[in-house]
């Protein structure tokens, strides 16, 4: 007995509408597994490859979280084929996320250890580069990603420290004081003569990219020499301290100084550049043991280290606090939420890299390796190991206000300096002014924000 069935040749119009297969985490005995479909509500016109890849990644993450090995395998198989590590920017972005999901799956209890993965010939290691000072200086200059924050911050700082004879800068930056030489230069050119500058840093966080091949002592002596060449006396100090406890030892040291030197005319500048988002916040629970609480002033057990850090800053009565960070929300405890947010933010560095680094160049490898590291941290890690806890500008603004700071506006000069800087880079970069704050954009999407604060 022969039967032939055919689907209509134009399925778009003639197919009887089927209910969209939804995500099935349990199998019904007499029904075949539903394949997670793509919501047709998105419409065919706006359908894009990136959209598709995001959907696949989301379904994959769901499958891994719900231990649906079959579905996870199927999607991973597809992703492996459509996201080569040397493809276009969407493909490379997807590849990095795919890698992170595989690492996550390999870590989870029901799946294999990474060692077994190595034997399966999967190279999952990321080759992050350790930069020399020259390399790092060139690197951060390639793109406005960091230059934006440097320029805006330096302008605000200069304005705030006018008239002070001693400037004490506390540099909490992921870029190892790369902002400082330009600032020293500007300070040196002040009309009223160069002041003394004290620079305090919390010491190198060995695990965070970009990584430097110098010790901070070596770095410090380079900076002191540079300052001397500009006729500025620079005192450099490292207070070993880590983001993991909210820079407790640094805060203690500063508090001590504050008590001792309260009378002198010293401007205290707290420069936070892409660093504060590593301090644990409320979604990281439970907090470390209450007995080991680093802060010595009264604390409430419900406050995160991030809140307490900002409070401690306020207690130092700084002359100005500059807070620059990435404008995205990577704090959700829900993997899929986090994945969506990360995917919808980290496409930006992959998209921009074509404009300033040629394919195959070593620098591009370093750049993308650092992004890869970030993606892996956000997707594959949990708890204390997940350090990339980026919060959007609105959240930080609220935090600073809660900590009794008030926003300071960036002056016209600051704005025009940033604009001039942006002109040196590709056309896609832009600047937004939102009330007191400045926001760096790429093709209209928010990338990073710069805010300045004074004690309220």
């Amino acid at each position: 007995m022969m039967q032939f069935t055919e689907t209509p040749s134009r399925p778009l119009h003639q197919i009887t509408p089927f209910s969209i297969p939804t995500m099935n985490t349990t199998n019904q005995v007499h029904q075949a597994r539903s394949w997670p479909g793509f919501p047709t509500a998105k419409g065919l016109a706006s359908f894009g490859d990136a959209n598709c890849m995001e959907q696949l990644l989301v379904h994959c993450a769901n499958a891994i979280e719900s231990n649906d090995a079959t579905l996870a395998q199927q999607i991973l198989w597809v992703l492996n084929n459509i996201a080569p590590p040397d493809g276009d920017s969407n493909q490379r972005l997807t590849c990095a996320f795919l890698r992170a999901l595989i690492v996550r799956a390999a870590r989870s209890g029901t799946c294999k250890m990474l060692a077994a993965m190595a034997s399966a010939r999967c190279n999952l290691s990321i080759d992050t580069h350790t930069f020399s000072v020259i390399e790092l200086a060139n690197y951060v200059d390639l793109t406005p990603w960091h230059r934006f924050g440097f320029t805006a911050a330096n302008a605000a700082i200069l304005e705030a420290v006018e008239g002070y004879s001693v400037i004490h800068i506390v540099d909490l930056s992921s870029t190892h004081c790369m902002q400082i030489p330009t600032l020293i230069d500007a300070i040196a050119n002040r009309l009223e003569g160069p002041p003394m500058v004290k620079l305090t840093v919390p010491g190198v966080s060995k695990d965070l990219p970009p990584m430097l091949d110098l010790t901070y002592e070596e770095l410090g002596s380079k900076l002191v020499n540079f300052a001397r060449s500009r006729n500025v006396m620079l005192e450099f100090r490292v207070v070993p301290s880590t983001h993991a406890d909210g820079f407790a030892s640094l805060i203690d040291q500063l508090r001590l100084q504050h008590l001792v030197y309260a009378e002198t005319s010293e401007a205290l500048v707290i420069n936070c550049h892409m660093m504060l988002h590593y301090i644990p916040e409320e979604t990281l629970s439970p907090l470390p043991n209450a007995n080991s609480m680093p802060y010595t002033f009264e604390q409430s057990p419900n406050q995160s280290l991030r809140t307490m850090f900002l409070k401690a800053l306020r207690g130092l009565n700084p002359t100005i606090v500059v807070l620059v960070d990435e404008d995205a929300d990577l704090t959700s405890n829900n993997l899929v939420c986090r994945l969506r947010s990360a995917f919808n933010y980290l496409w930006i560095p992959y998209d921009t890299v074509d404009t300033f680094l040629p394919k195959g160049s070593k620098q591009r490898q370093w750049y993308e390796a650092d992004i890869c590291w970030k993606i892996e941290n956000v997707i594959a890690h949990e708890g204390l190991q997940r350090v990339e806890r980026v919060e959007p500008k609105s959240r930080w603004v609220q935090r600073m206000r809660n900590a009794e700071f008030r926003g300071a506006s960036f002056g016209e000069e600051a704005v025009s300096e940033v604009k001039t800087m942006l002109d040196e880079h590709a056309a896609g970069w832009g600047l937004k002014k939102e009330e007191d704050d400045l926001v760096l954009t790429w093709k209209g999407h928010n990338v990073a924000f710069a805010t300045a604060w004074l004690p309220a």
Partner: protein
Amino acid sequence: MPLYDSASSSAGSCSGSSSSSSSSKPPPPPPLQQDIDGLLAVAGYKIRSSELRQVAQRLERLETAMGNSPADFSQLASDAILYNPSDLAAWVDSLLSEFAQPPTCSSEFIPGPVNNGSTTAESHTPPVQQNITYEQRTLDNQLTVVTATEEDSGIRLVHMLMTCAECVQRGDFSLASSLINDMQGLLARVNTVCGIGKVAGHFIDALSRRIFRGIGGGSVGGGGYAFESEILYHHFYEACPYLKFAHFTANQAILEAFDGHDCVHVVDFNLMHGLQWPALIQALALRPGGPPLLRLTGIGPPSPDGRDSLREIGLRLAELARSVNVRFAFRGVAASRLEDVKPWMLQVNPKEAVAVNSIMQLHRLLGPDPIRNSPIETVLNWIKDLNPKILTVVEQEANHNQPSFLDRFTEALYYYSTMFDSLEACRVQPEKALAEIYIQKEIGNVVSCEGSARVERHEPLAKWRRRLSGAGFRPLALGSNAFKQASMLLTLFSAEGYSVEETEGCLTLGWHSRPLIAASAWQAVAEAGSSAACVG
């Protein structure tokens, strides 16, 4: 207890006790007169079956004593040489007396249930029939030791299965039937939830069906497909990685073969629920350069209840394809047997790149008569005439089509006990239970069916290579992507113990180095020009 391991038994290691069963030939039947245990005899130790229990107890005592006084032991090790293995009991006793410490165990033991049933029919095979009792003896140091162990019974079961199969081959059905009874009795004392007990039970069933229903009469897994077999297949798919491995390995080869072609056509020899195709559709959707026009022709059995299940599956796949912007057309070909399909039914367009996909279907075409033109040759010929870009073949890696029944039986026992072992790792129900039934049906077909009813005529890769080469196909290496994907996916999501191997361009998936399923890819040796890509 796996057949292929030399089982290390618990009590002081009668090391010869199991290794004999790992060879493919069954051990010779035990001598009827001497009451010597046959299995140990093969290893060179002569010991009376009636004394087995006492010797085992003493060996345990010896082991405990050794453990408690290692200094004495090292002395002992250099002194004690087993000159005469024919008197194992005496040797153990002499060792025991050497130890200063009296045995620390108490001599109480709790006799387990004694099975009365097994003592019937003793006249035929006394040494194999024992009053097997479970004994448990608790030592002072809280060791619980089981003497006449389940492993022991397991070994005996295997032993008896081989003997029974050999009887069947010889035509001695009365002996075979009594062995069946004995085995069922023995089965009652063995753990049938896992290990040897479970798979032995299926083989006993299949043997009895073969004996009592006559050859060829069984309807187990007979030539046609059945509706419930789809459900079983689906659960087998979920419970263990064999089918998934087949799908993603075949898909990888097909995806790579379709590279650069704008019109492609996949012919699936057994559509089932179309589980293989969503992943391929999505991979084609996002391939660089955009998706091709994809046609899928799915072959499957006619639906018994008037539903058109092929069409339903085709529509679901079409819906998925639409959602990812892949132009797609489906055609269902309902056929009770693969050999009833004729190439004109597939409506292959000469301008298309064709992939023919056969997941465990080709062996069904190996008819009972090897001399006449078997369906396999007919089908391979028309596949060749389609000039496919690729023919993906996945088959069970086993030799279940040998002419000798005993050879087939032995091979199947080895193969399916390995497969059942691998299934132990699956924790999900009802997937696991239904997967076991799926495998059980295969066992039933291999063992109890003959002639045209026996469709599970698995042949190993080496044979398929010769057959396909002889039919005018040349092998296509599966490529490193397929291997990497298979390795990664299996490492991530399947229990430890599975292994992917690559041999001469083909991939196999096995359990602990025994390959169980083999995937390969082929292309027709070009006679005319190769198929051109379609325009537009």
